């Protein structure tokens, strides 16, 4: 188990990177605390897997250092770093039994036979694989196979961290929940450092204590699921997290008023002051659940038109246009939705301001 530090990491797959666009990882400087359950979340192609491979040692970073408990391991192989990794598709040694699969990493390290036996049986017990130990691994179902891949990491008692690269991709939906639960249990039981790469926000938010959101080769926010939802530090986090994502509208600031074309939206004192001090392209963000839809003008309502209403059972998603821009509002099931022209209220506590994509704070 280890505390993993990434010190000013940058990585390019090109032999001779020039501009910033040549880098798959632009600049990452972060710490993964010992025993933490982390999710690395981001869209496809944002550098998640590259980052994971840099941590495990499968990829050597172009720049920067990787530290395990303060020790520089940048030049070490994955085997030396003592890391375990579970891949997108189950990786098995087809010709071996489940037992031999689990014992393989231990045998390669020359561990004594009794100890191998003991560890394999312990891990098989944790993963509910005991009944399969004598079976060939090739004949098992996808979820059992993925558990074996995980087991090959768990058998090593001194493993520094276990890395997961979208491990549930090939698992049936009804088993996904079960396996995720299992991972959580294992984490609570063994207090291992887990880093879990996914592009599925549900998976990330339910699995992790801390979610690391990546976007275009950079970490844009590290936080608890609640942080990501309430205080997205980047417009990307705003619209990537949540379904539908945050409404983002470019606006101009005028004292306590944010102006979106003709519509005037009042801000609270604090937000307005923060906004007054910033430069750059200003955007106003608000989560769909904070928007209020009224059928009558009044208060601070700004006129908007309803385009579409989707009833999702426990709530409704309303699509509106305001000054030519599309917005979503999330209304509770019992609230009636007026048709056509409505008045939208932006409660000041739900409003966040962004300058050039970054949260103004």
């Amino acid at each position, binding site marked *: 188990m280890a505390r993993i530090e990434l010190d000013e990491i940058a990585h390019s797959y090109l032999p001779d990177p020039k501009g910033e666009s040549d880098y798959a990882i632009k600049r990452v400087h972060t710490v993964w605390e010992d025993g933490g359950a982390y999710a690395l979340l981001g869209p496809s192609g944002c550098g998640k897997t590259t980052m994971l*491979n840099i941590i*495990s040692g*499968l990829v050597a970073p172009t720049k920067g250092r990787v530290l395990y408990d303060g020790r520089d391991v940048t030049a070490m*192989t*994955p*085997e030396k770093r003592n*890391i*375990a*990794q579970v*891949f*997108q*598709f189950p*990786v098995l*040694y*087809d*010709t*071996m*039994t489940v037992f031999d699969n689990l014992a*393989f*990493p231990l045998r*390669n*390290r020359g561990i004594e036979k009794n100890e191998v036996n003991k560890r394999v049986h312990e891990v098989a017990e944790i993963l509910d694989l005991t009944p*399969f130990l004598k*079976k*060939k691994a*090739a*004949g*098992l*179902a996808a979820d059992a196979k993925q558990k074996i*891949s995980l087991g*090959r*990491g768990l058998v090593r008692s001194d493993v520094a961290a276990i890395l997961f690269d979208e491990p549930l991709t090939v698992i049936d939906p009804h088993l996904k929940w079960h396996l995720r639960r299992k991972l959580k249990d294992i984490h609570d039981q063994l207090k291992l450092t887990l880093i879990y790469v996914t592009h599925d926000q549900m998976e990330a938010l339910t699995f992790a204590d801390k979610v690391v959101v990546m976007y275009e080769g950079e970490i844009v926010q590290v936080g608890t699921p609640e942080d990501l939802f309430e205080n997205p530090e980047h417009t990307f986090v705003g619209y990537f997290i949540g379904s539908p994502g945050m409404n983002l509208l470019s606006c101009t600031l005028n004292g306590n008023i944010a102006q979106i074309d003709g519509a005037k939206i009042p801000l609270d004192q604090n937000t307005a002051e923060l906004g007054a001090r910033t430069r750059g392209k200003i955007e106003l963000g608000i989560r769909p659940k904070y928007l209020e839809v009224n059928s009558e003008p009044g208060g601070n309502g700004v006129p908007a038109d309803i385009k579409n209403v989707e009833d999702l059972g426990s709530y409704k998603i309303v699509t509106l246009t305001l000054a030519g821009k599309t917005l979503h509002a999330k209304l509770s099931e019992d609230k009636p939705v007026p048709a056509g022209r409505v008045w939208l209220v932006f409660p000041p506590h739900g409003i966040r301001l962004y300058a050039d994509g970054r949260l103004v704070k």
Partner: protein
Amino acid sequence: MGKWENNKAWFLVVPVLVFVAFSAIIPLMTVVNYSVQDILAPGQTVFVGTEWFKKVVHDYRLHDALWRQFLFSGLVLLIEMPLGILIALAMPKKGWGVSFSLVVLALPLLIPWNTIGSIWIIFTRPDIGLFGAAINKLGIPFDHTRTALDAWITLMLMEVWHWTPLVALLAYAGLRAIPEMYYQAAKIDGASAWSTFFYIQLPKMRGVLTIALLLRFMDSFLIYAEPFVLTGGGPGDATTFLSIYLVKIATGQFDVGPAAAFSLIYFLIVLLLCFVFYQVLQNVGKGAKV
């Protein structure tokens, strides 16, 4: 009513049936027909039952040819399979070297079989051949037209040179199809190069290697053109393989009946052995299903 519609469906199968009949069944039946008759003159035939089969089964020259054939195919497989895998493992994985080595490997496969025999006749001639003359100059007497062993060595060399590339190409395709993460997992598990080969590469290549083995077995068991050109079956009967002997009977002595019986037995042996190989390879390393 349902029955009538099913009968109509049979018409749709007719083209395939006609095609298969003319391409396989009718020629095969002709052979069967010859194998049970003695043709005294055109239009004058006598039914002889299993006589030709008995004769062929007891023909000691055929027995010799059969064992020779087994030895030849066995040696070919023993050399070509491991060698092909080794070449595939050593081939470059990216860059210009990939296309270069693929083209070089494929060259022997593109040469007509008769030409290959001619190339090797010249190459191994003891007086002017690059290989034959050189080895004689070194003081080692070598003449494939006189010594049985030399004829075999020449044939084996030619066969290995000609067909190992096929095994290598198939094995290479199998290797390239292994996802990178298997190697990554092996690295993380601390596997040695030998374990990686034995537990990942070899099992993952099983499919293509099965095909390579079957193709190489069939081709080497049916080999005709190259030894016919190179040694003509000699010296003596040293390189008279089954198909060479078969052609000698069929067209040399014009014993169509025995030749037909021989063909059928030959065909059944190949079929049986392919079936056995296939079954064994399919089940190798496969465990009980859950």
